[in-house]
């Protein structure tokens, strides 16, 4: 791996890039503090803040493009955070092609989602609060990607976790939503523990947690240290990116408003894990076992998400499972090392566009269908919502990897990379990646056909009548922009050499030789994709879709229940945890409380006894004295003998 470029001090637009974080953060704080007074215009402030971030990011981008590639890694210290003697931790930002990519993706897609939310949340009385949270989410994510040390990254990491909690349980008067938010938060905390432990190991081994310091130290570190750091970072990434075994929160997170789902799935939250993996490439380069583990986790989640996605009837949950699966692709690519890391980011960017596009499309459908999400009650929506249909089509074709659309460029490269290597790995990883491409085509077609094609399965008259209609312009314009991205972004990025653009940040790409010839891989993948689409066509367009879900095979039933992941977690972690908590509570109640209260009660009792001696009768006092004298005499005499 040709090593990444050394950092140089930032100048020009890059030195004010911290404003990208500060502006939305200030806006979020202002909206939350100012309260209801800003109800009527708060969302415009929020959009302005997000747009301003994008403008700053774009200015920095223009500056970076103008620089030679060996000066494209820039550090800027914003604030000396923890100075302690010789040692200090700075709140510093690092701007390099990797963080630049995220910066643009988050601010651009984020701003579109902000605009979309104006229409989507129009009738919500708490719209201002929603926008404040969105701003906070964007600010946290930007801090996460801009930090130049694991500690600053961690601050953003936690901010993202908090923001997701607030947004998933935004409609917290519904108990399930509140629970979903809590679940996401808690599962993320499990991952965050990994991050903390990894940072502690780094600190004890290298005495620093900056990216440069760790990358320098890791070269001479023992393989055990590197593996430990790698595994704990992977745990953190699993929590944030909903990877196996911490993926169960993602489906429930659909309880939040749809723009939130789009934001979480496309630009922020779940991409953070992939970012962490790619950012820590130097660590995984040293420890091949940790690296292999990343690939394995990615491969498992890839298959897992696809299977779950094929069985769900809730439109948003299918999309959620699909995100899980696509992030699995990215993790797999990141776990392949220099062969795949750049493609992980490539896929992340294109996925950001087409997944946001589809989520916003799903939001439009919900908007049209009174917040209904069961696809079995849809069908034939194409003629009512032509714009949503067309934009969704773009996203759908992009995700299944239709030739020359966004997903084709990024996913195909990952599949090729997965076929590179030695021994069993290319066959297993490559085979799974290719197979899931077919499955992706199947479940996404199923989603698309069930919503927009076939017979209308909803009533247009009567008490449950639906009157589907196109969403307002504030909603469909962002969809159109994202659809254009879904169509052309992959091609454009491929043309301008996105992979070599990332090179200063993550090192050069190794060109491994796949175990199968590239045209064979591409051809086979396309055949599988076509088969998936055809199968979905035959099952959901050529045949009528039953309104009630059929019982299905064992696998279908298992997939509907997330392959029993919730039950597993409940049985293995929750029940013993609750048992432990209960037993600790018993010990606390009877042991600790008993001891403390026992001492208290003993004192009171003793006091009562002694108090009774104070009866006010002079003769009893004289008696005590006499008794005392006798005792004192006995003691004195006894000590003599």
């Amino acid at each position: 791996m040709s090593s990444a470029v050394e950092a140089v001090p930032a100048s020009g637009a890059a030195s004010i890039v911290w404003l990208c974080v500060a502006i939305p953060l200030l806006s979020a704080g202002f909206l939350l503090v100012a309260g209801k007074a800003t109800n009527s215009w708060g969302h415009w402030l929020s959009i302005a803040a997000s747009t301003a971030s994008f403008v700053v990011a774009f200015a920095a981008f223009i500056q970076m493009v103008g620089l030679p590639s060996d000066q494209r890694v820039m550090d800027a210290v914003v604030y000396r955070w923890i100075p302690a003697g010789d040692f200090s931790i700075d709140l510093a930002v690092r701007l390099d092609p990797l963080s630049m990519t995220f910066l643009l993706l988050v601010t651009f897609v984020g701003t579109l989602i902000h605009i979309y939310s104006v229409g989507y949340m129009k009738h919500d009385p708490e719209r201002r609060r929603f926008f404040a949270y969105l701003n906070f989410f964007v600010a946290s994510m930007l801090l996460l990607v801009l930090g130049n040390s694991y500690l600053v990254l961690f601050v953003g990491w936690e901010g993202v976790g908090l923001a997701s909690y607030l947004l998933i349980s935004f409609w917290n008067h519904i108990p399930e939503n509140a629970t979903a938010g809590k679940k996401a938060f808690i599962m993320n905390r499990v991952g965050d523990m990994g991050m903390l432990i990894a940072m502690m190991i780094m600190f004890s081994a290298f005495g620093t947690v900056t990216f440069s310091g760790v990358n320098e130290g890791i070269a001479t570190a023992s393989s055990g240290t590197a593996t430990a750091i790698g595994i704990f970072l992977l745990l953190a990434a699993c929590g944030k990116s909903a990877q196996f075994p911490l993926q169960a929160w993602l489906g429930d997170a659909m309880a939040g408003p749809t723009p939130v789902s789009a934001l979480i799935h496309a630009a922020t939250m779940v991409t953070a894990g992939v970012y962490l993996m790619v950012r820590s490439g130097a660590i995984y380069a040293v420890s091949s076992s940790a690296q292999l583990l990343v690939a394995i986790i990615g491969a498992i989640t890839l298959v897992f998400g696809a299977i779950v996605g094929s069985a769900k009837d809730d439109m948003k949950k299918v999309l959620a499972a699909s995100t899980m699966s696509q992030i699995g692709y990215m993790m797999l690519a990141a776990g392949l090392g220099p062969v795949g890391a750049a493609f992980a980011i490539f896929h992340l960017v294109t996925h950001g566009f087409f997944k946001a596009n589809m989520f916003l499309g799903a939001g439009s459908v919900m908007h049209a269908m009174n917040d209904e999400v069961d696809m079995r009650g849809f069908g034939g929506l194409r003629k009512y919502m032509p714009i949503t249909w067309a934009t969704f089509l773009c996203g759908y074709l992009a995700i299944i990897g239709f030739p020359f659309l966004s997903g084709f460029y990024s996913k195909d490269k990952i599949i090729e990379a997965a076929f590179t290597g030695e021994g069993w790995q290319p066959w297993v990883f490559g085979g799974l990646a290719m197979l899931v491409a077919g499955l992706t085509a199947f479940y996404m077609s199923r989603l698309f056909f069930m919503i927009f094609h076939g017979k209308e399965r909803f009533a247009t008259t009567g008490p449950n009548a639906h009157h589907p209609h196109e969403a307002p312009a504030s909603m469909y314009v962002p969809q159109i922009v994202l659809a254009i991205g879904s169509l052309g972004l992959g091609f454009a990025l491929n043309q301008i050499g996105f992979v070599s653009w990332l090179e200063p940040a993550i090192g050069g790409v190794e060109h491994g030789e796949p175990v199968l010839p590239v045209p064979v891989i591409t051809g086979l993948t396309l055949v599988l994709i076509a088969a998936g689409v055809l199968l979905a066509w035959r099952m959901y367009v050529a045949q009528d879709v039953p309104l009630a879900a059929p019982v299905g095979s064992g696998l279908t039933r298992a997939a509907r229940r997330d392959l029993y992941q919730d039950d597993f977690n409940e049985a293995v972690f929750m029940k013993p945890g609750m048992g432990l908590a209960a037993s600790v509570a018993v010990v606390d109640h009877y042991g600790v409380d008993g001891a403390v209260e026992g001492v208290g009660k003993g004192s009171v009792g003793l006091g009562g006894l002694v108090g009774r001696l104070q009866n006010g009768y002079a003769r009893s006092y004289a008696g005590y004295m006499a008794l005392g004298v006798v005792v004192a005499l006995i003691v004195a005499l006894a000590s003599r003998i």
Partner: protein
Amino acid sequence: MYYVVLAVILFAIGGAAVLTRRNAIIALLGVELMLNSCNLVLVTFSRMWGNIEGQVFAFFVMVVAAAEVVVGLAIVVAIFRTNRSASLDGANQLKH
């Protein structure tokens, strides 16, 4: 030696009087008896060791006893005036 035994007996009688009798006057008498038994012991030891310090202390004790009886009787009279009784058990107002 017999003096000491006598003093112990006197002390015990005085102590018993203080502890068991309810009348404050009798209790004060008991206190006097105990003090006198002490005086007797002091004088006895003074004779035994052949110096006069014990006798000097006995005078001090007599002075203290006289002072004590003055104060004690005054208190008893005051109590009697308020309570119409010289019973020690009736005078437990200190508790409250």
